[in-house]
């Protein structure tokens, strides 16, 4: 659907694709600095233990070992690996900090106890083996339910029964008790979701370097560079100007890189050795120590009037935090916001408890609670539709929100085309022909669907702030100075298109300067599907400012008012007289190299930090067709359709790529990815791709992505976010399709053939 743009909306190849295709792109794992040492972390082999004594004398004596550090050698400052002090709106709470750089007590198998810097990997390993740690083993718990029992071992002194925090749904409304009484049909069900690993291919790697002035450079794949900088400055008591965070290319993030892992340890080692130190995780270390998606057990209760109107809703959640809070602290509360904010409902309440246990910490993976909660909500919707005798699609239509209604964050919705998504997807999958039909035979097919609303940035819950600089060069090209991160989502391309569209130049005229906190304005970073909307808006603002200067200068050169001018195809010309104009490069060059005292830079700078009066949430509808083998319980997803409303698609090829990748992640979440901790030893057994199964090329269904492509009033050229919406509703769509096929529900992720077969047998007995 063309909106008459010059380059926004075009399917453009990415400017960084060629160097990735030739292997020239450097990730932190590829970087080498002169004199660089290998850093390596000693980790607890026990899930819960006091650290009585650490003797590092042997290790320090080994030739080639340049530093051995323990907690005593580091600033003993508590921090939250997922950043404390991300300010929140008055309704929220500050995150608690509960960890040191190196552990004061071992709280999971893999907890960081000590670290070394050595000449090479072999020596580093020998050094770790020579560090003698006296542990006093403690009883441990590997599941939050066990952690809450009376007498359970306590992980953190402050947390009674290992409950870190209790959250009540801050946007409660009406009276749920009365609401359920007034409802004609009430459905209640319990669900559980698993600790999905982000599965990024570049293992977590950091290089830290301290130069002779004491300035720290930290090369990290972290998605939030400026918060990392602030955190490092705080931990090591440095002025922020003495800390530079550099993001080279990153091999996948998916939310895992929102947290800090080996950065502070690498900095501590670099400070001690005064040499660059690189800590590279093995994949097993990555699985064991990098934060997973938060797992939960929760109950969804929804009450409906007989015409299908949702009347009351309540969700109660037990959130699995792991050994440290990371971002699990917010996860439960945010789940409530997603789960209860998607549909219109006059009576709603919810609560959650976040509980510690001795496992890998949970934090914020792609979707951050939305995939987790819609797993349950969208199944309860189908269960209710069944009881009400209403088509599941109609039940959605009745209850989804319209423009102007309060969003999941209770601000008016600027745009929503969820209706269009549902309609387009239903047609494509053949809903009318396939759903609700009598099924028979050994292999049975069914269709199912789900919907969701997400966000384009986390305001008003969390800070939203991005800055951009648009700086013209003498040849009419620009340097676009931004720092949205480089998680591989093609955000730089989208930002280039936005800038080019506004300035009347081409995307290939935009040269991105990014990836270093020293060189860019503040940008929160990449999360909450914010980059296109927020950083994009910042780019648009900066481009407008630069354009204003350009037109003002050009106006003087042409002897007309700037209002009479417009830009297109690298030229500035008088409206209505396309032959009367100047090239942009002429104007810039004359300004830059001007000799009579009126030289200037043509550059725009912006800070986009909305405290908004409205929100622009992306929406999506998901449709799955499955085939279930009734003798083995195997589920084959034949076809998957994602119909997404992300406003204007700045680059439709990118949007498709995000959604197709989301289907891979969603499919894994739904069917095969699971977190296995050995209950006897506390060791993570699903610690590599042999044991942790992610979909490969042969596991993917036929896919189709439908982009509604209708603009949002507030987004840059009408764009909204898409990164997380790509994934949110996939699992419940599959669960609902399985129900259509064989009449059973699995409420416990992942949907394995074992569970399907068991449920089928229970149904028939």
């Amino acid at each position: 659907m063309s909106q008459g743009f010059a380059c926004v909306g075009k399917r453009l190849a990415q400017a960084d694709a060629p160097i990735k295709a030739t292997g020239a792109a450097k990730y932190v794992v590829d970087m080498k600095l002169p004199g660089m040492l290998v850093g390596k972390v000693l980790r607890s082999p026990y899930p819960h233990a006091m650290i009585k004594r650490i003797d590092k004398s042997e290790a320090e004596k080994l030739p080639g070992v340049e530093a051995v550090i323990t907690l005593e050698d580091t600033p003993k400052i508590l921090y939250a690996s997922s950043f404390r002090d991300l300010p929140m709106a008055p309704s929220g709470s500050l995150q608690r900090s509960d960890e040191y750089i190196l552990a004061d007590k071992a709280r999971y198998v893999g907890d960081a106890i000590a670290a070394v810097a050595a000449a090479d990997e072999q020596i580093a390993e020998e050094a770790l083996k020579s560090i003698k740690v006296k542990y006093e083993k403690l009883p441990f718990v590997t599941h939050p339910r066990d952690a809450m029992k009376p007498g359970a071992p306590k992980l953190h002194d402050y947390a009674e029964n290992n409950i870190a925090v209790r959250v009540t749904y801050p946007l409660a409304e009406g009276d749920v008790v009365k609401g359920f009484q007034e409802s004609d049909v009430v459905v209640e069900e319990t669900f559980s979701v698993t600790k999905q690993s982000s599965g990024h291919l570049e293992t977590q790697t950091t290089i830290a370097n301290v130069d002779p002035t004491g300035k720290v450079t930290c090369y990290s794949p972290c998605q939030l560079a400026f918060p990392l900088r602030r955190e490092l400055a705080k931990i090591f008591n440095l002025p922020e100007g003495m800390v530079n965070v550099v993001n080279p290319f990153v091999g996948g993030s998916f939310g895992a890189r929102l947290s800090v892992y080996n950065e502070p340890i690498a900095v501590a080692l670099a400070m001690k050795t005064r040499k660059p130190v690189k800590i590279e995780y093995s994949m097993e270390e990555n699985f064991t120590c990098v934060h997973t998606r938060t797992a939960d057990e929760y109950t969804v209760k929804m009450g409906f009037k007989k015409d299908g109107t949702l009347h009351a809703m309540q969700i109660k959640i037990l959130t699995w935090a792991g050994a440290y809070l990371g971002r699990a602290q917010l996860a439960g509360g945010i789940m409530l916001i997603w789960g209860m904010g998607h549909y219109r409902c006059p009576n709603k309440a919810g609560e959650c408890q976040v509980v510690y246990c001795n496992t890998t910490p949970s934090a914020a993976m792609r979707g951050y609670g939305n995939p987790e909660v819609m797993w349950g909500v969208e199944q309860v919707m189908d269960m209710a539709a069944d009881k009400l005798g209403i088509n599941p699609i109609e039940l959605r239509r009745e209850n989804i929100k319209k423009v102007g209604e309060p969003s999941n964050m209770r601000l008016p919705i600027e745009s929503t085309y969820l209706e269009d998504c549902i309609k387009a997807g239903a047609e494509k999958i053949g809903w009318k022909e396939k759903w609700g039909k009598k099924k028979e035979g050994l292999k049975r097919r069914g269709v199912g669907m789900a919907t969701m609303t997400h966000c384009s940035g986390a305001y008003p819950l969390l800070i939203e702030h991005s800055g951009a600089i648009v700086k013209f060069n003498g040849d009419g090209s620009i340097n676009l100075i931004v720092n949205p991160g480089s998680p591989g989502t093609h955000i730089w391309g989208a930002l280039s298109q936005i800038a080019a569209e506004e300035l009347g130049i081409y995307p290939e005229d935009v040269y991105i300067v990014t990836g270093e906190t020293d060189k860019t304005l503040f940008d929160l970073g990449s999360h909450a599907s914010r980059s296109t909307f927020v950083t994009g808006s910042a780019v648009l603002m900066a481009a407008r400012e630069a354009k204003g200067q350009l037109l003002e200068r050009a106006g003087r050169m042409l002897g007309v008012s700037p209002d009479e001018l417009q830009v297109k195809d690298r030229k500035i010309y008088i409206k209505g007289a396309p032959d009367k104009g100047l090239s942009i490069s002429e104007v810039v060059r004359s300004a830059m190299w001007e000799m009579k005292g009126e030289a200037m830079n043509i550059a725009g700078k912006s800070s986009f930090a909305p405290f908004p009066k409205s929100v622009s949430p992306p929406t999506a509808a998901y449709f799955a067709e499955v085939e279930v083998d009734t003798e083995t319980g195997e589920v084959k997803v034949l076809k998957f359709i994602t119909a997404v409303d992300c406003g204007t698609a700045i680059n439709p090829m990118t949007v498709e790529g995000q959604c197709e990748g989301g289907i891979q992640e969603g499919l894994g979440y739904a069917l095969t990815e699971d977190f296995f901790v050995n209950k006897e030893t506390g060791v993570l057994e699903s610690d590599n791709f042999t044991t942790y199964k992610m979909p490969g090329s042969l596991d993917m269904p036929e896919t189709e992505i439908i982009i509604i492509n209708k603009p949002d009033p507030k987004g840059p050229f009408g764009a909204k976010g898409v990164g997380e919406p790509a994934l949110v509703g996939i699992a419940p769509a599959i669960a609902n399709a399985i129900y259509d096929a064989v009449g059973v529900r699995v409420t416990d992720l992942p949907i394995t053939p074992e569970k399907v077969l068991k449920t089928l047998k229970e149904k028939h007995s």
Partner: protein
Amino acid sequence: MKKIEKETVNFIVNGRKYQLTIEPWVTLAEVLRDYLDLTGTKVSCGVGECGSCTVLVEGKPILSCSTLAITVRDKSILTIEGLATKDGLHPVQKAFIDCGAIQCGFCTPGMILTSKALLDENPHPTREEVKEFLAGNLCRCTGYVKIIDAVVAAAGAMSRGGK
């Protein structure tokens, strides 16, 4: 029989000969990345499950993280850095770029080389055959769809005489 401790051996990588002194326990991936500074080949899982470390040895796709370097001495090795020529990018590389098959890019070198090996063996694969051949290459970003599009497009370009 004398045991081999440290050997000076020849590696032929991307058409160039290198002489290196290595121990037997060094993997091919380490030789490429650390000794020869060819960091295009990536190590990810380190257990042979993800295909990121794929290079072509005598035209065949092998897992460099699970190969002792000393066992492939004197054999011609092609890494991602050696695929483009002075005439430009290989059609597979061009297709990956044009079809949007590259997101974070970490699986890309392995994917491209495995795809090249496929097209050298089977110049006109069906989509199903492409999926089968790439089944040992994991990607977390793209969902494989545009990767398969790219391989099919490259096959078309190559059969039309594209270089």
